[in-house]
């Protein structure tokens, strides 16, 4: 698999893509230093700040969701690599406030290690910060230790919900409670069709035979659950929605949010066809499906595949999802 990408010196890739983001969406976000993306117009100091961290190479995630109603800051590492603890600490210092900070960490070894180190140091300095760890990937199993479950694109609706709660003036404890409740009620499953190339070294990640797909592929192309021959869109949707319903516990009469997150080369055409079947299956079970989303939110370079995210929504979550948001890649 030859790499064909529009880049310059791979060593400058993360810096340049963030500069591009800040230029393109200058009314919404700006860069502090090279690797911290913040809102162009900061949120009122009296409100809880929302900060997250993670590697680049997954655009628009995570920095594309900085802006009014969602994230206050995204601390970026390098391609597929968590930022170091000192960088994260720098961001936490920047948002130090009476109201406190919520730090959202996706459950990946590198991110967790940086977050723990930075949190320890921040708390020593008297910075009020609580962590929410996302681990909604059910590919390794539904009832296993949450520490063993990865965080996938489910972080994005979570940012939306807690971002809106913070804008609404909720306290740190309230925002964390709303977020953890949302966190417990969401689940993600990924499927991959093709591999991709690492933009900095050109190496191939996760090769799959021409006639196979894999359910459970992680967001850096790490292999996961079961391989099978290629299934139709409807079969794929059916096989994925069943365990997601089980994991979220959604049942007749409940309201749910369904999101199809394309990871790279899979077309929106396909995502819409998959959404259709999954939404129909939910409706057949008496579940009220709110307006959803199909698109690329957290990608894995040019890999073909997608993540299906199902969230069981409480009444307050529904309101927070609808609340105003103005970020480069999510608007409400």
């Amino acid at each position: 698999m030859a790499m064909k990408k529009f880049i310059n010196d791979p060593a400058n890739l993360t810096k340049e893509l963030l500069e591009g983001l800040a230029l393109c969406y200058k009314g919404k976000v700006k860069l502090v230093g090279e690797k911290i993306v913040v809102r162009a117009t900061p949120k009122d100091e009296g409100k809880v700040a929302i900060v997250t961290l993670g590697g680049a190479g997954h655009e628009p995630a995570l920095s594309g969701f900085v802006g009014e109603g969602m994230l206050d800051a995204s601390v970026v590492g390098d391609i597929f690599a968590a930022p170091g603890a000192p960088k994260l600490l720098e961001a936490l210092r920047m948002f130090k406030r009476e109201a406190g900070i919520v730090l959202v960490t996706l459950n990946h070894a590198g991110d967790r290690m940086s977050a723990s180190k930075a949190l320890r140091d921040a708390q020593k300095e008297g910075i009020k910060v609580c962590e929410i760890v996302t681990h909604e990937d059910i590919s390794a199993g539904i009832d296993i230790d949450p520490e063993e479950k990865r965080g996938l694109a489910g972080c994005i609706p979570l940012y939306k919900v807690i971002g809106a709660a913070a804008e609404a003036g909720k306290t740190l404890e309230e925002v964390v409670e709303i977020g953890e409740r949302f966190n417990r009620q969401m689940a993600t499953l990924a499927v991959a069709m093709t591999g991709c190339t690492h933009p900095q070294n050109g190496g191939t990640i996760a090769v799959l035979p021409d006639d196979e797909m894999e359910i459970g592929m992680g967001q850096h192309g790490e292999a996961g659950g079961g391989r099978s021959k290629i299934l139709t869109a409807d079969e794929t949707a059916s096989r994925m929605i069943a365990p997601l319903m089980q994991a979220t516990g959604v049942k007749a009469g409940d309201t749910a949010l369904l999101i199809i997150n394309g990871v790279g080369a899979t077309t929106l055409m396909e995502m819409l066809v998959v959404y259709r079947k999954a939404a129909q299956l939910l409706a057949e079970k008496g579940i009220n499906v709110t307006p959803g989303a199909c698109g690329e939110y957290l990608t894995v370079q040019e890999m073909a595949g997608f993540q299906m995210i199902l969230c069981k929504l409480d009444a307050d979550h529904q309101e927070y999802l609808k609340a105003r948001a103005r970020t480069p890649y999510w608007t409400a």
Partner: protein
Amino acid sequence: MMLTLQRFKEMIAAAGEAIRAGEKRFSELDAAAGGDGDHGTAIVTAFQAMAKAGGADFKGYLKALSEALQNEACGSTSTLYGSWLQGMSDTAPEGAAELDAAALAKVFNGGLEELGFVTRARVGDKTLMDALIPATEALLAAQSQGVAAMFERAAAAAEQGAEATCAMRARFGRAKNLGDRSIGPRDAGAASMACIFAAFAATVKASC
């Protein structure tokens, strides 16, 4: 024989060169075991960042290495190595620009202990710990034989530990969901750790 700070700086430089030469292999090993194929990039970047560190004593130099790594590099590798070097700095004697065998053993032991707080991985989990834990143990056990022997034993133990990862199933890092399919290739992080200890040993030996 004492290990001078100058010699230790040469060891780090030699390790950096050995790592650069193996960059492609480390990335391929990462991908082969189901990881994201970037360990070569990560460890080379880490050594590039470390190359900028300076210091007049072991404590300061080790601290500078750790900070350079965490400030400039990214990813699990820089956090893991950053903690390792931080632990070494913490246990290094104040102001020393030379270490005898006992002090050296204490420093490497302190590095491993600090790293143990950062990761739950231990021998058998198919990570760099499979190379580092036996290497540190061998280094400690060889104290009475002097600095050169310590690194020689450590390098041999690291190599053996890295080789043993071939038969293991990954439980940490991005390869963990691969299950049985992670069996076969050497763990990328263990391979690079063994490469570093080999460079350390060769540098010390050459200077004897």
